[in-house]
């Protein structure tokens, strides 16, 4: 999944539909901007979502991701730029005429209608005959594995069942793009994890493009073909979950996606794609990134699981363990970098097997990492 051919297109957002690929993009945003009075909720941004893709927008709350979703749905009109759905310009097209269906955070199931009526609501509005509606609704109930629940009211269903009914209701109108606004946020952890797999398989089996909004990175990384990280109204980076995790393009992405250790200093040398960083704690090397200049301030990021305990590593750090967080398959050692002021915390992932030989709490130890596992980003 990580090396799907469409990924090659990811670095060219904003390409107008129909120009570079035979199929128009499911959703294409061209310099879309949204202002509410003086505040810019969405700063001009461009984005292409391919047909049949599970695409997520990941960002902290208030970053403008829900606004973006509502712009695509047509609930809001952009103050500038264009929204294309299936290659058609959506300017002036009301939301009920768009090939999108939306799943709301609150799900917004109609409480006075049965599950059947809920699912068939969009078909009713399209003038489909009652018998046909009922047949379609039943088909969808089977798709979401609730064949016997058609006569119930939404209030009589469990959280996960309501979730699935909301999806069925949206799929009933056969949208090209399903817009999902943090639909799992109200569920408990176990159910959320279960629903992830279910959403993923529903998406694959229906072939509908999913445009998914979430602030939960594990959700986005687990389900999506591609993820766009958003912050303060701008797109930070678009890529596969693997790319975002292993090659973050900006400081925000590096710090927001996954756990990471940070070392800051100034760049002393760049050669062969490796940047060497002079820090108060020592000299460290990591992969160089565009925009890095010798002498400029920069930050080095290395994941806890890339840290190796023991002497003789490159990029050697002297640490003291403060505590272990046991997380089942592995443990995270929270350590302090010796001699750092202000104190710098470093976390190291320790596998279950090597936990017995791990250093004791309070004991000094050394750990390091390979330069190719670390990334150096310019300090913006």
């Amino acid at each position: 999944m990580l090396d799907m051919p469409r990924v090659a297109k990811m670095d060219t957002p904003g390409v107008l539909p129909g120009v570079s690929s035979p199929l128009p993009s499911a959703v294409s945003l061209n310099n879309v901007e949204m202002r509410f009075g003086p505040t810019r909720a969405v700063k001009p941004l461009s984005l292409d979502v391919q047909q049949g893709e599970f695409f997520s927008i990941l960002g902290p709350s208030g970053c403008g991701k829900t606004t973006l979703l509502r712009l695509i749905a047509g609930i809001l009109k952009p103050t500038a730029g264009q929204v294309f759905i299936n290659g058609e310009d959506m300017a002036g097209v009301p939301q009920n005429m768009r090939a999108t269906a939306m799943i709301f955070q609150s799900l917004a199931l109609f409480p006075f209608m049965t599950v059947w009526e809920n699912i068939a609501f969009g078909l009713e509005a399209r003038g489909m005959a009652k018998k046909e509606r009922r047949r379609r609704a039943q088909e969808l109930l089977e798709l979401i594995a609730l064949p016997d629940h058609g006569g119930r009211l939404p209030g009589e269903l469990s959280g996960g069942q309501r979730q699935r009914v909301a999806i069925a209701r949206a799929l009933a109108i056969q949208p090209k793009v399903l817009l999902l606004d943090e639909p799992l946020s109200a569920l408990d952890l176990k159910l959320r994890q279960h629903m992830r797999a279910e959403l993923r398989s529903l998406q694959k089996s229906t072939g509908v493009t999913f445009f998914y909004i979430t602030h939960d990175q594990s959700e986005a990384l687990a389900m999506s073909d591609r993820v766009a990280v958003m912050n303060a109204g701008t797109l930070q980076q678009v890529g596969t979950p693997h790319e975002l995790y292993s090659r973050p393009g900006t400081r925000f992405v590096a710090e927001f996606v996954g756990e990471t250790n940070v070392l800051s200093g100034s760049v002393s040398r760049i050669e062969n794609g490796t940047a060497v960083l002079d820090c108060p704690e020592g000299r460290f090397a990591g992969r160089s990134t565009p925009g890095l200049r010798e002498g400029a301030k920069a930050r080095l990021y290395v994941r806890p699981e890339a840290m190796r305990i023991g002497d003789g590593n490159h990029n050697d750090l002297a640490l003291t363990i403060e505590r272990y967080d046991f997380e089942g398959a592995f443990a995270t050692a929270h350590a302090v970098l010796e001699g750092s002021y202000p104190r710098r915390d470093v976390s190291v992932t320790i596998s279950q097997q090597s936990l017995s030989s791990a250093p004791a709490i309070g004991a000094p130890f050394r750990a390091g990492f390979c330069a190719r596992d670390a990334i150096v980003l310019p300090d913006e």
Partner: protein
Amino acid sequence: MSEIFQRFGKTLGGIFVALVLLWLAGLVLVPGIYMVNAALTPRLPLALRGGPDDVYVLENFAYLLNHPNHGWIFVKTIWSSALVTFVTLLLCYPVAYWLAQVARKWQMRLMLVLMLVPYLMNEVLRGLAWYIILAFSGPLNAMLMGLGLLDEPHRWYGDGGVLAGMAYAYILFMLFPIYNAICTLDRDQINAARNLGSATWRIHRRIVLPHAKVGIATGCVFVFMMAAGSYVAPALLGAPGSRWFTQLVYEWFFEIGNWNRGAAYGVALMAMCLTVVLGLLALFRVNLTSAIK
């Protein structure tokens, strides 16, 4: 009941319960029984009371049924009250929807103040305001003639005037329950319906109206009861041909002095109102407690 004692203790709880019972007995039960009793006994001089003629009879109700006009006025009062209810509902639903879901905060506040200000005045004065507006040589006729819509002044007093005055007097009792109900409607419900391709009228019929049902039922009960029991508006804005049933009740009590017949008329009106209200609630499939809440 035990909750009251638990919360306030025996003494204070006892006082509360006693006060409620006193209220019920003094203001509801005793006058009610007195009225039904009066309605069912003939009007007798003091000397004959307790005598052989002082028995329960239905002649006071029979009088209402057999009277050439009063039966008709009774029906018309109920029918007109229903009409007032319907008119206020038609006026209030869009306004309530606008206030609850569309209007900005300042617009909503301004509207609420504008609508509440007239209600700081006495009901009689509000009736008088309409009395002036609808007068033969009043501002309404002058305006309509000035606009060329009328060639000569129209006599508004009568059924039309009473309807207008009442709709005005009771409109807020319809507005607020509906407004409250629509306020609690999640905006995403409307968004979702529209997103699924629903036209505006269908959103109202399938989403907003069912949600506002309890509020609508409450408003209808309020307005209908008050319209049927109204005295000021028909007295001020009516014409000889548009008498309200409450005026008949008033006449029996205070002009003719036949309290027994007045009581019978009052009981008949009350029974009819109760029937209509319960019918309304059954129609809306709302129960009485949730309507009053």
